[in-house]
């Protein structure tokens, strides 16, 4: 397999921060798959009745798990914003190097602002009902 000529791989390129955004899109996507698993478990627990739901919420609403949900919210904000960037590329916009770098900065800024707001809401709810 390795004997045939291979095209240059990622390691031959000089690092640019847009590369980090690219791999983060995949990492956040995998995190969101995990979040979907939790979401479905939550729905199944709700369908199972009040008893099952309370048992599930003992875990899902615990502080360590809330931190995992916070990470999922961050992943969602990022995957959402960078996904819109990908869709813009698919429509033919923003391919120039400077545009791609500027949109990368925009994605990071909007992601952090949105994530801070959502995570604040997540923990505010937790404190209010504890």
């Amino acid at each position, binding site marked *: *397999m390795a004997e045939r000529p291979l095209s240059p791989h990622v390691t031959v390129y000089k690092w640019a921060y847009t590369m980090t955004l690219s791999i983060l899109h*995949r990492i956040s*996507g*995998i995190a*969101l*798959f995990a979040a*979907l*698993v939790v*979401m*479905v478990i939550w*729905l*199944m627990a*709700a*369908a199972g*009745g*009040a008893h099952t*739901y*309370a048992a599930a*919420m003992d875990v*899902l*609403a615990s502080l360590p798990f809330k931190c995992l949900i916070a990470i999922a*919210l961050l992943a*969602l904000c990022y995957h*959402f914003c960078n*996904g*819109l960037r*990908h*869709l813009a590329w*698919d429509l033919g916009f923003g391919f120039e190097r400077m545009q791609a770098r500027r949109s990368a900065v925009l994605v990071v800024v909007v992601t952090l602002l949105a994530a801070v707001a*959502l995570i604040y*809401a*997540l923990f505010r*709810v937790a404190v209010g*009902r504890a």
Partner: protein
Amino acid sequence: MSLRAPLRQVLSHGSARDGVSHWWVQRVTAVALAPLSVWLVLAMLGLPAADHAAVSAWIASGLHPVLLALTVALAAWHGWLGLSIVIEDYLPQNGPRIVLLLLSTFLNALLAASGIYAVLRIALRGAS
């Protein structure tokens, strides 16, 4: 249609000829999930999550069952496409690749089926 299998397919090299639909469906599900995910996250953060009756009532009210079932199904579909690409990109052809691809396929199908079942069960409980 030819009944002869081209050598490149026998050797697992070359294009499978269905790349465009994979690419397109990934975009279509992404566009659909964008508004659905915003709605879902904002709605869920506003829910009294500890209150089973209130949560069930919210899931069952109005168009929520339809939107919830759609969101879970589309997320599983989008996730299946995305995970497939990641697995195919990083794992060599011989080895755990086919196992992980099958696992991802079955798991995503299970997630879609379970999510839709749970939503319908909650939504139809009041009707029966």
